[in-house]
């Protein structure tokens, strides 16, 4: 019996991790990420509803600006690079944590958070410019759906930043205990999922929106 299995509260014994659960309850190292994956999937459903809304309303500009007049590919390219690289550094942070390397784990988490902040700043800058031009979310149904879809992703990134900060403090205070490691794993799943959603936003909103 592994140490991990012994600390599981619901069960005694723990299984040999077939993943299917028919040999008895799975250990927490399987159960916790599995539950978190399910949550991430439900989050994906949430975004899919927002994408559907955007697709329905993208042409409802009410005489206001259209996608081609608003979006700037270059700015979005920088944004995208920042977020994709942050996913990479997030992976590095997990590797460092697996090796119980406090300094590098903290450093890579910090870099991840900073890149996320860069992404968020560019997004807010873009929003500010658009609102300044009179292309705020109240202007048309299209802009309402644009600000909501992209803004909801931004809100997720903000929540991710808050989580990264909390985890840095926790790792610092508690070290690499099994439950802290599980949380780090969930955090990285969350962060990568935001990347996936961003790739979809980048394609459906910005690339298609700036087609001539």
């Amino acid at each position, binding site marked *: 019996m592994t140490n991990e299995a012994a*600390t*599981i*509260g*619901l*069960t*005694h*014994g723990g*299984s040999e991790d077939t993943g*299917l*659960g*028919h*040999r*008895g*309850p*799975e250990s927490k190292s*399987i*159960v916790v990420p*599995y*539950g978190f994956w*399910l*949550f991430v*999937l*439900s*989050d994906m*459903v*949430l975004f899919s*509803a*927002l994408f*559907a*809304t955007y697709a*329905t*309303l993208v042409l*409802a*500009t*009410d005489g206001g600006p259209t996608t081609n007049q608003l979006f700037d590919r270059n700015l979005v390219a920088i944004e995208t690079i920042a977020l994709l690289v942050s996913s990479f550094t997030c992976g590095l942070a997990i590797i460092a944590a697996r090796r119980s390397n406090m300094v590098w784990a903290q450093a890579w988490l910090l870099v991840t958070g900073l890149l996320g902040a860069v992404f968020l700043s560019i997004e807010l800058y873009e929003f500010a410019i658009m609102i300044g031009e009179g292309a705020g*979310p*109240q*202007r*048309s*149904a*299209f802009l*309402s*759906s644009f*600000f*909501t879809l992209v803004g909801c992703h931004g809100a997720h990134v903000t929540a991710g930043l*808050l989580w990264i900060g*909390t985890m840095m403090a*926790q790792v610092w*205070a508690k070290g690499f205990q099994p*439950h802290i490691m599980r*949380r780090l794993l969930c955090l990285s799943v969350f962060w990568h999922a935001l990347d996936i959603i961003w790739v979809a936003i980048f394609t459906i909103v910005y690339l298609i929106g700036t087609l001539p």
Partner: protein
Amino acid sequence: MFGKLSWDAIPFHDPIPLFTSLVVILALAALAIWVWRKGWWPYLWHQYITSTDHKKIGIMYIVLGLLMLVRGFSDAIMMRLQQSMAIGASQGYLPPEHYNQIFSAHGTIMIFFVAMPLVIGFMNFVVPLQLGVRDVAFPTMNNVSFWLTASGALLINVSLFVGEFARTGWLAYPPLSELRFSPGVGVDYYLVALQISGVGTILTAVNFVTTILKIRAPGMSYMRMPVFCWTSLASNLLILAAFPVLTVTLGLLMLDRYLGFHFFTNDGGGNSMLYMNLIWVWGHPEVYILILPAFGIYSEVAATFSGKPLFGYRSMVFATLAICIISFCVWLHHFFTMGAGADVNAVFGIASMIIAIPTGVKIFNWLFTMYGGRVRFSVPMHYLIGFMLTFVIGGLTGVLLAIPPVDFVVHNTLFLIAHFHQVIIGGVVFAIMAGYTYWFPKAFGFTLDERLGKAVFWCWFIGFHLAFMPLYVLGFWGGTRRLQHISDPSWAPWLHVALLGAVIIGVGIVLTVVQLLYSIRTRDQRRDVTGDPWDGRTLEWLTLSPPPHYNFAVLPDVHGEEAYWTRKQTAIKQVALIEEPDYQPIEMPVDTPTGVICAFFTSLCGFAVIWHIWWLAILGLIGAFAVLVWYAWRDEHEHLIPVGEVRKNARERRRIRMEHLHELSQST
């Protein structure tokens, strides 16, 4: 400072809500003082409010659901009374703006705060026991889910006393629900309360899908799970896929109302049809979220009270999963008349009819389970038979509504109202009453009075048919739903019969309370000593009633379907229990006030958002986040139940079971 909140929000000039809320507030205060005088607060706090025990949380859900049932039923009887009074020259006793709030509150409360908590309550109580394990995957999150649901229910009820409720119907269709046409806080109460409880529901789904797929007793492979676990799995998968869409839909409407966005407005390019599509992409799966666990309850009841394994277990599982998938392909049948065109309507009409096939499979399975069985006509069996009679008619009127040309005739009429009450009362409510009777002894250690239980059943059964059959007739005559005044006097007799039906259901609800009190008083005559009062077949009957916190001293080994039945038959044949296992100390999650404190801050935040008190909203959010971080910082995750205690309890159970076995062997 206080946003839109002022003394005008209290209904001083409106006697009905004022009087009701004062009575409710006084009753709650009296109850709190009584509990305090009895010295029960510490018990309640430790055993229920902060409990991470799935059984306790399940019971709290069911108590919440039953309390809200009384609230929702009061709304119902007020509506029936108004409709049977306000005919011809009479205007009845409810002005339109109040009547509109009542039917909106009735629908919202009955679906979100009666049916959902009751169904989730049964899943909580039963699923881990049937799977032969000690708790759900995330016990603390389970507690948080419950308190978020309770927080939503609280906000809905606060609207009775502070401000108003929505006048828009239970799904708050725009543009009526937009700020321009509903400037009051009613729709905001609706939106915020549902958002908060919706988060709780999604967390519940995460919890139960993980539990059912990952945490089962050794040997409990998928095709050995009791059908209730299968239907719970399907229902939670539906929640996981459907509730985020509800969150989005309500969120977009909030953005329209709070920040002047243009999703569903008439101007700015908004599209209110988008709302209809989104809300029903959630709304149609929602009815299956409710009915699938109900089907599971009926399956357990059918097998147990027929003394036979469930007929067609595999077809039952496949029918469940088929319904789970098809339920996402039918949402458009809720608005055939809104101009999608004949082709689209045909596709969705056919898909809606196809759902009747797996449902029919299930009905035949229950019938064949009873066929050739030794059927015991106790209370849950009454509900099963009553359900089959009622639900088949309700299903057929549903198939009728699924035919677009017919739907054009009866759309939004009382025919529709009769149809969905027939499937929800005949399907979900009957199942809840059956499950309540069936699992009550497991929860509290004594059975409910059988005679009063049958009286309750007949009240529901007769009352339901009297209340809703007239509505089919009126629907065919063109009677639209939600009428505050009826101009055609020839409808009067039908409406009076409907009122009589509602009153009979009311008698049934009163008798339920009487049954509970009477059963508590006479509990010593009805003790469930063995833990298996109904000659059950699934693992929850293996342990004592009520089960210890950890459910099972040793996780049961499952060999084959009907895990407990096989084991019991072997024991009876050999007049011996299985060899005494080697007991180990058991680690259980510690109780925590995280859920209730978190929900306190969430309620504050919700209330503040409704009334535009922004500083309080931010304070509430910070508070909720701080509680979660505080919880995450804990060091003690589990507490250990010493092996001595486990052994003592287990030996006591074995002694009782041995006695019972000897009695059985002497009687045969």
